[in-house]
């Protein structure tokens, strides 16, 4: 199966002109969308449907810088990328110490049994959450900040593996932070919506 960069006729690089990508997406949609292939027999219709689905998935994977990095990692590792895996990510080693603190705050809140979340326990939980949210945003900025470096390595033929590994680490940390932020919000009874936190950007 063609990779998503190929679908858009792009090199496997992270710097993508968003407007050009959108224009191309609309063009490809006009070519492949089932709306314009009504008269075909069932087999051809199924092909059109597959093609159209491929264009849509490719656009979704490439349109945002962070999603692009995630897709690239999967592609480089030769595994299928799938959105929204809900298995809880493991805590990256670097975060273990901090997470102990968060865990403590959660225990404390549990002991207060939700009655006193307006008080000290609540204040602590909120403070932890704010800190983690900042960290969460910072991880994204850091990743996007090094995408140009990747493209340079591609152009110059340098060793990309260390950077790929670093991207992976950062994204794993980020995914973990998202889960913990969700847990904290749950404990506070403030989860903004009841949705699965599969949004990664």
């Amino acid at each position, binding site marked *: 199966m063609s990779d998503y960069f190929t679908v858009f006729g792009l090199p496997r690089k992270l710097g993508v002109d968003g407007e050009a990508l959108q224009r191309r997406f609309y063009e490809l949609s*006009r070519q492949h969308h089932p709306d*314009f292939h009504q008269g075909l027999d069932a087999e051809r219709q199924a092909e059109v449907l*597959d093609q159209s689905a491929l264009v849509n998935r490719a656009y979704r994977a490439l349109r945002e810088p962070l999603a692009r990095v995630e897709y690239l990692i999967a592609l480089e590792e030769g595994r299928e990328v799938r959105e*929204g895996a809900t298995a809880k990510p493991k805590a990256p080693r670097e975060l273990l110490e901090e997470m102990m603190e968060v865990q403590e705050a959660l225990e404390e809140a549990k002991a207060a049994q939700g009655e006193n979340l307006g008080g000290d326990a609540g204040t602590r939980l909120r403070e932890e959450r704010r800190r983690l949210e900042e960290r969460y945003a910072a991880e994204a900025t850091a990743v996007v900040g090094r995408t140009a470096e990747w493209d340079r390595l591609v152009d110059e033929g340098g060793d990309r593996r260390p950077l790929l590994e670093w991207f992976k680490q950062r994204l794993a940390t980020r995914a973990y932070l998202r889960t913990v932020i969700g847990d904290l919000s749950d404990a506070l009874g403030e989860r903004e919506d009841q949705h*699965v936190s599969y949004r990664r950007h």
Partner: protein
Amino acid sequence: MSRIVGIDLGTTNSLVAHVEGGIPRVIPDAEGRALLPSIVAWTGNGVVVGEAARRQLARNSARTVYSVKRLMGRGYDDVKDELARLPFEVTPQAEVVSIRIGDRAVTPPEVSAHVLRALKQRAETYFGEPVEQAVITVPAYFNDAQRQATKDAGRIAGLEVLRIVNEPTAAALAYGLQKLSQGIIAVYDLGGGTFDISILRVKDGVFEVLATNGNTHLGGDDFDRAMVDWLLADVKSRHHVDLSGDAEALQEIRLGAEAAKCRLSFDERTVLTIPFEGFTYHRDISRTEVEALVESLVAATLGPCRQALADASLRADQVDEVVLVGGSTRMPLVQRRVEELFGRTPHSRMNPDEVVALGAAVQAQILAGGITDMLLLDVTPLSLGIETLGGIVSVLIARNTTIPTLAKEHFTTSVDGQTTVDMHVLQGERELAKDNRSLARFDLAGIEPMPGGMPKIEVTFLIDANGILQVQARELRTGKAASIEVKPTYGLTEDQVEQMVEDSFTYAEADVEARLLIETQTEADTVLNHVERALRQARDIVGAEERAAIEAARAALRAARAGTDRDQIRELTTALNQVTAPLADRLMESAIKDAVTSKRADRLLENS
């Protein structure tokens, strides 16, 4: 390609439209009405739809079905809370609820099929040719089962449903055709029973939905209910009568409340008068009072709006235009709340009752190849996932993913020689399977016996352009397609739909037969009445012989009228008309003579 119509199958009203000379137009009925009330009544004389059914609401409440859209694709648990409020009897089946009409059980798709059939006939009368293909709209937030139920309804009505389109996006298409919008558009659609918000980017003829959200159980019906409760309490306190158990009275109050609500969108005050047995209820109602009753319901639409904006990664102030769709957006309160949220005045430059049907017609024209510069890219409103160990949902396709889209997942066996694998597919945003909407259970069968863990079965979950799921499976080692048995959790099986399609032909014929008979009998009654009156008026100018002939023809028609032989009734009606024709002429002459000196002719002509 044959003609494709666009249909808005609404909770309260339905419409059919088509594109004519590049402009979408609603197809009116013979009386020029655009809206067909989505009401179906089973009367002693067959099934009636629309206005005729509305008149049955109070006097035939157990057999008159309205707002059936709220039951489409739903199980008993979903709707049991509101069943107490419906005057018709709904059977407590877990999978597909059905409505008991006498000794028949009718499912919601069958009820909707009656509405669709009426619209189909309306279009056929208008074009003078058969109409067999349609685009039908559904609320954007409808799940798979609700969409499938709508498609089933089309099939039962004898329509090939070429596309299911989301209502807010259809509205955007209708607006777009008139080149009114470019940029980021929010469509706020509050109808009779459902609420949707869709955020679109409109650019170069492409209508790209960025995010959608909503509530398929929130609309004008709920406003009416809040008013009914309030009016019931008022009747009780002022007249000391509890009408809550009186089906007929409840319908009268509901209809009165609905009408008052509509008037209050334009007037500050209105008066509600309902005559009941023994007393007349009279109530002065202000807009402020009703707004207080529905305030929390209107507020419930704002959360989904914020979520849709967040999912589209947009702030409210980045929205260029806010469009109001659906009859309930006529309420000034709704307009105020929408304006506050988006910080911009919303508009409904196109008729909010008609714009969705017009958009459906535009989409129909696109499918027919008549419009090539517009393209709608819609999204799936809910995340799709499968249940994994521990009852956790593993998301395969996230909500707001552009459709068509697909996801592949690999499965294997756990035991040696295992030949089937079952999966549970769900739709929704919650982490636990039990909190989501169960779509179906699939049995992957026909796996070759192998040691556990050896088979590699690839399952493809494809959401098509209708937002409906298709599943395919393949064993990768053998390349063989695995068979899938789908057990929809809520919905009709293929066989059931097939049966209903067949039934509909049988019943449709029976229904047509019944209606024609009624028409013929009514015609006979009219002639019999006229003749009777004429004989009374013309006592002096009828000879014995003539009178005998007329009496004989009368008696023959009366006898035939009691039977069901339509041809015989018609023949004898014609015969009676002929034998009385000379008398009618003489009466007319004498009436005209009289008219010179008196006004009696008016009365006589009026009566004839």
